């Protein structure tokens, strides 16, 4: 800039973008702020015209939703992160349910599994005055304050996928019976390892409630039933396939006698399988876990992976929206009843505010994988 204006001074040309010169301080300067002022006023006027469009429209946002027509109900859903296949599948189900019920759905969240980013979304939605917020918390303890704030504004709070038990949430929508899944995983890996040897845990985070509840049930099962199994390590993969692959490769180097791994989340399984394949340990080290069909299909067929578990994530999104709308409408879900077109509800034997979607998880093997062409 300095050079251009120096040139301008020398040759007495005025560049349209360059600063006006010479000094020109007071007169030349006042133009821009004044013009900006005018633009500002114009924009404020414009903003005034469009401001009835945000989330809830002009209706009084914090009124109890019981008497609200369906198309005024806004359900906000917060996944752990938005850009992985599992949560996109949940979104698909949620969208479909919202369409059928005629309610409005916001499905948004952070791009990394971060607690503080999730808190920002909750704060924004409280201000926008949505009717229900469904949270899959990354950090159960960190959402407590925001849950309380939301409840003070009359917003119903559900947790789904992963729980925050002490946060004061109204309802938890759990995809499986945690105890059964944890034990099923342990039994499966123990069978593949012939009930002896070193095993390790591969998990997205050590604070997500769902993954770690399964991990605890699996470890408890090992302690109780399989005394010859020795847990040697825990690898934390942060919901990232590539990171999971690298960490598992290191793990395999560090523990040459490793015989098995349980990978507790959808990204850890394909990452660990790829690591087994690349290090040539496929078939020598057993692997099982929870994941989605598409990324693991090839590994199943090649025999790198013998089996893994899941539920239908679309059904989870669907059920969560139906229950959220039921809560907003003032209904209280009961065992065995159907809510807004959901299948009959099952509650957890250990917690009366936890709905369990599918008591038995689906088990994917080489034989049945072709039947589940979900596209994720």
């Amino acid at each position, binding site marked *: 800039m300095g050079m251009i204006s120096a040139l301008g001074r020398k040759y007495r040309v005025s560049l349209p973008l360059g600063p006006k010169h010479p000094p020109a301080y007071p007169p030349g300067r006042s133009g821009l702020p004044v013009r900006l002022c005018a633009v500002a006023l114009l924009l404020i006027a414009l903003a005034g015209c469009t401001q009835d469009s945000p989330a809830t429209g002009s209706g009084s946002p914090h009124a109890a939703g019981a008497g609200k027509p369906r198309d005024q109900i806004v359900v906000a859903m917060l996944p752990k992160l938005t850009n992985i296949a599992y949560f996109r599948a949940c979104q698909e189900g949620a969208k479909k349910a919202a369409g059928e019920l005629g309610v409005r759905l916001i499905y948004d969240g952070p791009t990394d599994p971060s607690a503080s980013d999730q808190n920002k979304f909750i704060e924004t939605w409280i201000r926008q005055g949505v009717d229900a917020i469904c949270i899959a918390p990354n950090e159960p*303890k960190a959402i407590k*304050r925001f849950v309380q704030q939301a409840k003070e504004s009359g917003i119903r709070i559900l947790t789904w996928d992963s729980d925050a038990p002490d946060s004061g949430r109204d309802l938890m929508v759990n995809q499986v019976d945690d105890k059964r899944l944890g034990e099923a995983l342990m039994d499966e890996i123990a069978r593949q390892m012939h009930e002896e040897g070193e095993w390790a845990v591969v998990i997205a985070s050590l604070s997500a409630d769902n993954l770690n509840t399964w991990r605890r049930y699996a470890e408890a099962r090992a302690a109780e039933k399989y005394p010859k199994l020795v847990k040697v390590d*825990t690898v934390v993969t942060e919901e990232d396939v590539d990171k999971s692959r690298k960490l598992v490769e290191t793990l395999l180097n560090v523990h040459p006698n490793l015989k098995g791994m349980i990978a507790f989340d959808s990204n850890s399984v394909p990452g660990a399988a790829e690591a087994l394949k690349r290090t040539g340990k496929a078939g020598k080290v057993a692997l099982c876990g929870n994941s989605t069909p598409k990324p693991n299909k090839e590994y199943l067929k090649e025999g790198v992976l013998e089996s893994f578990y899941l539920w239908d994530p679309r059904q989870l999104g669907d059920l969560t929206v139906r229950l959220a709308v039921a809560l907003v409408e003032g209904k209280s879900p009961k065992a065995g009843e159907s809510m807004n077109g959901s299948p009959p509800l099952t509650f957890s034997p250990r917690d009366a505010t936890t709905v369990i979607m599918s008591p038995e998880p689906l088990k994917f093997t080489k034989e049945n994988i072709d039947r589940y062409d979900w596209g994720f």
Partner: protein
Amino acid sequence: MRRFAPPLLVLALLLVVEVALLAPLSGVRSSRILPTFGAYANDLLIEAVPILLLALGMTVVLISGGIDLSVASMTALVACVLSKFEPGPQFWVTAIPVGLALGAGLGLANGLLVAACDVPPIIATLGTLFLYRGLCEAVLKGAKYNPFFDVPGYSRLGELPGALALVGAVLILGGGWFRASRWRREILMIGGNRLAARYAAIAVGRRLIEVYTLSGVLAFLAAVCFTAHDGSASQASYMGLELQVIVAVVLGGTAVTGGRGTLSGSILGVLLMAVLVEGLQAGGSNFWIQEKMPFKFGNLRFVLLGSLLVLGVWINARLARPSERSSQ
């Protein structure tokens, strides 16, 4: 530091425009303007306070002709170490002094690298960016500890009055002293012409060490604000925040080449940034925008941050006084 110099006036106007455009997305309604705008401003300021603390440190570093890329990693490391302490009243007498000493120590290490070992600031702090982030992982080992909400009185710092009191104290005491100090003029001179500063008998190395240590101490304060509000810290916390801080400071009229910059400009820069980030997030849950836009609104974040930076720097260059312009 000119009082209300024209660049600041333009930034303030830009802020007004931005708020007018983006506040309605965040639930501010003309029918209930006071309560809704109050809630908006409340959340916005809480988000902005820790970034502002980092930006104050960054301003001084940039004025001195350096740069501190490690601020976000320093903040995360302090937060991770704080999170390892047991909650309870003793947190205040154990964790807080340790955190303060750690923040100052990390900053001091940067300062020594720059001043004593003569490593270029951008390389030195890029190195410590990775080093401190790696230490976060070593400290937490993938686990998460969240004692913050259980420490009595700690979460007050995450609410508006507490956070404002903290940043107000820093600004009034620190900023007030800074403005009139010989120290500030020496830093300006070091940033403007290091060699001349040395010939003028300014203790250049010592000043630089002080500048980076200050940045570390402010990172500690920011870590306190962040954790008091969020209640948690992880090894991935605040990743990429250093870039936001630098954008805010440069937007506020501080020259990356050193020798020019004001704290008040940085305050406006941080606010501009906070409003934009919040607005983009709120836009993601706006039905009108969702229907009209072919892509996710939040994905515009970096596009707009980048545009804001370029626009801000252009306005600043255009409005800088001729004498300052020629020094660029």
